[in-house]
């Protein structure tokens, strides 16, 4: 059993069943014992009354003064009976026994016993039997009463008790269920925080839950903090490295360009080419570190939040050229894409578009068949057909500058690849410039 509620129910149910069962048994015993004791004390009194009126003739025939008897012993099958049996002599039955008889055990004088026996018409009799010596003869007096009416009343009471116990048990289990459910709804704040964490709206979980799960929440928060710090550290390290190698790379470039350096032109070009590549890698890392900004680990990208800022930033970067970036965002809420990757991807594509645009850039964002579709167009000069073919063709290294256009799209390509997406370039039918279309699968 894995459910906490199930375990609680089972535990409580078993304890209550045991407790109620014990109470029921105790009550049953106490009731019957008391009822029997009450009946027996009355029977004993009746037996004493009989003895007072009893005489035994010399031939052993018991006789009784009829006026001393209560009428219930005369009424046939009344449920109250007596039998007097003289040892070696006669017997005297109450009239109530009518055509039936009782056979009480034989007891020596001075001995008494309680005796249970079936009676007429399925009565259940409780009898008090005493051995006596009257007028020089041993005899046994048995006085009996039918317990059926009393048992009926007791049984009714016990049924009521059982019914109340079952209803009470059900009620207690129901209350526990409610309590457990209420407790679990208090966990909701933690669930909500986990969702917010996933979307990057928060960096830690609330500690406003039940105390029992507080240690778990604290442990998670510590872990989150540590991951965040680790990420920050590696990001800083990458940024520092990139920054650090840019200086020496500039120096190398300058020294290589120095005409006084005695080196074959082909070698010089090859070396400069490699230095350029290193320089670009460093640039990319720096840009990455800058764009990352705030936000925890694995923060999801939310277009509505990021795009206006990005557009404003790019407009500022390209001032004084008046570039109007038209945003058409048809997505809602956070997307299952990493915020930093998206900022880098969009930043590069938009930066490129702004660089080449005369005054207008159109940016559309929408979701189709579980894919995010990005479409960026500009009204710049665009690319020649050959250049388009070159940058869209398979196996083309986008980080190589395409004839005169300076499309540094290697980062874009790298990110699109990491999401198993596709990127394509074409001439913009609307604005006349370049149209870049990116398709990224979500989830």
């Amino acid at each position, binding site marked *: 059993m894995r459910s906490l509620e199930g375990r609680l129910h089972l535990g409580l149910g078993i304890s209550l069943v045991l407790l109620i069962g014990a109470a029921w048994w105790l009550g049953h015993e106490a009731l019957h014992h008391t009822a029997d004791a009450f009946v027996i004390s009355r029977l004993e009194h009746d037996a004493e009354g009989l003895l007072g009126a009893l005489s035994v003739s010399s031939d052993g025939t018991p006789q009784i003064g009829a006026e001393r008897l209560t009428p219930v012993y005369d*009424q*046939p*099958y009344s449920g109250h009976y007596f039998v007097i049996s003289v040892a070696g002599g006669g017997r005297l*039955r109450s*009239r109530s*026994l*009518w*055509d*039936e*008889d009782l056979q009480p055990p034989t007891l020596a004088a001075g001995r008494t016993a309680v005796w249970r026996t079936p009676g*007429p*018409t399925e009565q259940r009799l409780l009898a008090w039997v005493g051995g006596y010596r009257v007028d020089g003869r041993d005899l046994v007096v048995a006085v009996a009463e039918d317990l059926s009416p009393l048992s009926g009343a007791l049984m009714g009471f016990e049924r009521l008790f059982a019914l109340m116990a079952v209803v009470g048990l059900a009620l207690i289990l129901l209350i526990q269920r409610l309590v457990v459910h209420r407790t679990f709804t208090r966990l909701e704040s933690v669930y909500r925080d986990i969702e917010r964490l996933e979307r990057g709206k928060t960096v830690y979980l609330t500690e406003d839950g039940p105390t029992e799960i507080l240690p778990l929440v604290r442990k998670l928060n510590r872990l989150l903090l540590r991951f965040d710090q680790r990420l920050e550290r590696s990001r800083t390290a990458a940024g520092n490295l990139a920054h650090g190698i840019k200086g020496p790379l500039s120096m190398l470039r300058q020294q290589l360009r120095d005409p006084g350096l005695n080196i074959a032109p082909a070698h010089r070009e090859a070396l400069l080419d490699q230095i350029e590549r290193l320089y670009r890698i460093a640039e990319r890392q720096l840009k990455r570190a800058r764009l990352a900004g705030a936000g925890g680990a694995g923060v999801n990208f939310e277009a509505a939040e990021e795009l206006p800022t990005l557009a404003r930033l790019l407009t500022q970067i390209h001032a004084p050229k008046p570039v109007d970036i038209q945003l058409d965002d048809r997505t809602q809420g956070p997307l299952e894409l990493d915020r930093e990757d998206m900022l880098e991807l969009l930043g590069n594509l938009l930066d490129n578009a702004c660089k080449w645009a005369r005054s207008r850039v159109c940016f559309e964002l929408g979701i189709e068949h579980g894919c995010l579709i990005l479409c960026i167009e500009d009204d710049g000069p665009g690319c020649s057909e050959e250049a388009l073919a070159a940058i869209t063709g398979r196996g083309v290294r986008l980080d190589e500058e395409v004839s005169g256009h300076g499309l540094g799209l290697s980062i874009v390509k790298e990110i699109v690849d990491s999401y198993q997406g596709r990127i394509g370039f074409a001439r913009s039918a609307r604005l006349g410039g370049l149209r870049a279309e990116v398709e990224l699968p979500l989830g």
Partner: protein
Amino acid sequence: MHKAAPASTIGIVALLMTARLAADGPLDHDEVKRLRESGQILPMSQVLEAAYRLRPGQLVEAELEREHDGYRYEIKILDAAGQIHQLELDAANAALIRDSDR
């Protein structure tokens, strides 16, 4: 003649007893028990069953009477409405002879 005297005495006693037995009137419970044990009458529980079928209720009094042609139970039953019903049933076969209310 000397021997005739006890015989006649027995005869008289027998006659007296028969006369007493033949007389109408309730029998005491020891006689009822003897009659039942000898099989001349049914146990009262069986007679009661028949009576309860006719008049459900509670037995308050029963008497066994000797009639010239057999034995007859006179049974009083208290029903749930508080009414007393008096039934007469044949003690040998529990057949209804008379219902006071019909």
